[in-house]
């Protein structure tokens, strides 16, 4: 990966043999601050925008000059590129579009790349809007190995950028931010990628109203501080055994609110995180609702946990405040009628501890013996994570449209599956019978 930006210059800098008609020549002829409209058509060339131009490129398809080099380089402050289709068929580490200057605007790009889509390197205050990033056709679909894929929109040491209303499909990580701060990621859609939005060593990232499905994980926040994660929707992420709605690893001072995590393997996975707030999130129809490991001083309030196979797995976590969440598997008791159960909801870590050491013990999930053992080891129950005041009914949803969204595991499907099982059982009983000898 080193040298990703190193050998970028060679291919793009020298105008190709196309001569006067080449797009690069047109750009070279324009004066800074000018608006340039490129003639529609397909061009096998790479361009560099090295002065402040506003380039209108609707109907222009650029396929690069071959080799692992950026097809488009935006290297001047304030340069803009609109509407271009960019195709990079060469594998490697160079992106289709490289942004290396501040306050660049790219809008409405359609990118197909065998490597990265859009890369920002030390670019601050830039805008990436309304663009689509997809891999080349042969890298689409499940057969493609992850190793062959690259990130859709990839930020490194780039701060204060706006990434809005883009769509990334079938890439490695949809939007990847490393050592980049105060970026706003708003209303993007990511699907069939590894991680939807992946933060590594970032501060002050805002992730709002993004949505995704069929990724391995929706939002992957690792070593993150002061982020805001609100009103995102991540559903149906269960293709991988390790998929989660959102994963938080070593996250601090972050607010996670109003998100919808439905039909994932694990809804919320939280590890080694401190001083965060999770509130008003909908965590439903996941295999595991929430996993809370080795985390302290977090507050989880007014979240709704509905129809998860396992609601919680918590261990090694203390001083977390869980309040007023709704756990639909929990049978509370509310003599005072204030809608809050007087019995706390306590999370037994026994199964979590057992399976952490030897994962194969998961086969004893919900077995009668496991229940019995769980009830034996309650000596340190005071240390367990618990919701002191669980709700009897789910709190009113802050996000409006939760009901309109189709339930991924609809009642009809469950009914049909049940009926099929019954028929199968009956058939076997009738056919095999019980032989009396």
């Amino acid at each position, binding site marked *: 990966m080193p040298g990703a930006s190193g050998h970028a210059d060679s291919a793009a800098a020298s105008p190709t043999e196309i001569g006067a008609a080449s797009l690069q020549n047109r750009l070279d002829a324009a004066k800074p601050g000018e608006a340039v409209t490129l003639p529609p058509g397909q061009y096998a060339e790479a361009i560099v925008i090295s002065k402040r131009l506003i380039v209108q490129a609707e109907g222009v398809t650029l396929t690069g000059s071959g080799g692992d080099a950026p097809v488009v380089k935006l290297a001047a402050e304030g340069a803009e590129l609109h509407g271009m289709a960019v195709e990079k068929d060469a594998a490697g580490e160079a992106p289709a579009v490289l942004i290396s200057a501040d306050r660049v605007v790219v809008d409405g790009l359609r990118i197909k790349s065998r490597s990265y889509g859009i890369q920002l390197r030390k670019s601050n205050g830039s805008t990436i809007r309304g663009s689509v990033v997809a891999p080349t056709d042969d890298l689409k679909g499940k057969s493609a190995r992850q190793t062959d894929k690259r990130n859709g929109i990839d930020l490194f040491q780039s701060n204060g950028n706006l990434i809005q209303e883009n769509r990334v499909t079938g890439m490695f990580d949809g939007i990847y931010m490393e050592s980049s701060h105060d970026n706003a990621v708003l209303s993007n859609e990511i699907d069939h990628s590894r991680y939807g939005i992946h933060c590594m060593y970032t501060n002050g990232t805002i992730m709002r109203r993004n949505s995704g499905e069929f990724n391995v994980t929706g939002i992957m926040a690792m070593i993150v501080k002061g982020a805001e994660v609100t009103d995102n929707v991540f559903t149906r992420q269960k293709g991988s055994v390790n998929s989660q709605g959102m994963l938080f690893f*070593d996250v601090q001072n972050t607010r996670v609110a109003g998100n919808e995590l439905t039909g994932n393997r694990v809804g919320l996975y939280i590890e080694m995180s401190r001083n965060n707030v999770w509130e008003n999130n909908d965590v439903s129809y996941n295999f595991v609702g929430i996993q809370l490991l080795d985390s302290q001083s977090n507050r989880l309030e007014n979240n709704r946990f509905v129809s998860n196979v396992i609601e919680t797995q918590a261990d090694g976590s203390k001083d977390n405040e869980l309040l007023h969440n709704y756990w639909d598997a929990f049978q509370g008791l509310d003599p005072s009628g204030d809608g809050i159960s007087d019995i706390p909801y306590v999370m037994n870590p026994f199964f979590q501890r057992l399976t952490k050491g030897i994962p194969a013990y998961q086969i004893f999930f919900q077995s009668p013996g496991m229940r019995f053992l769980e009830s034996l080891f309650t000596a340190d129950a005071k240390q367990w994570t618990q919701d002191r005041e669980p709700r009897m009914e789910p709190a009113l949803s802050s996000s409006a449209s939760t009901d309109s969204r189709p339930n991924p595991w609809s009642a009809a499907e469950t009914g049909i599956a049940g009926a099929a099982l019954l028929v199968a059982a009956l058939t076997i009983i009738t056919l095999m019978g019980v032989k009396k000898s």
Partner: protein
Amino acid sequence: MKKITLMLFVSLFTILLAAGCGKQTYEPVPIDETVDKCAICNMQIKDDAFATQLTTTEGKTFKFDDIGCMNEWKEKNAEAKIGGEYVRDYNDKEWIPYDQAAYVYDADFKSPMAYGIYSFKDKASAEAFTKEQGKGRLMTAADLASHEWTQNKAQMGMDMGEGHSHDEGGEMDMGANAGATANMGSDSH
């Protein structure tokens, strides 16, 4: 009769020997991208040159997406007896025993968890890489034991970029090296 007895003994001995030997070696296992995740940071493991793995004498294999995560695991599980430990050659992804590999470190090198350490099967290819990149410090497995990550690892998360006002130098270190970052974080306040 004697011959047969002898044969039996010899073959039994061989089998025992083979079985005994089998227990002593801990071979690297392939990475399966669909199921393998890092035992420390939970990220999916890419089948690339940064993947590492170790097998305990109990026969349990742990895989990692970055050599830094393996280091953290070893710190967290100091009591664990490790039978085999493998890293990969940067160029051909061949598994190499941890203590025989040559390492190159630079804060600017990118790796999955940003520890910035690349591994090579021999010193020559490691040197060639540093020449090509124009940077990178050559290290051995012994050097890694005294690498900064050891003392600063625990602070990685806590001091990672205190506040929001980082100068560029700070960010650079932050991305590439936990150790340097921890220092940056505490310096900046």
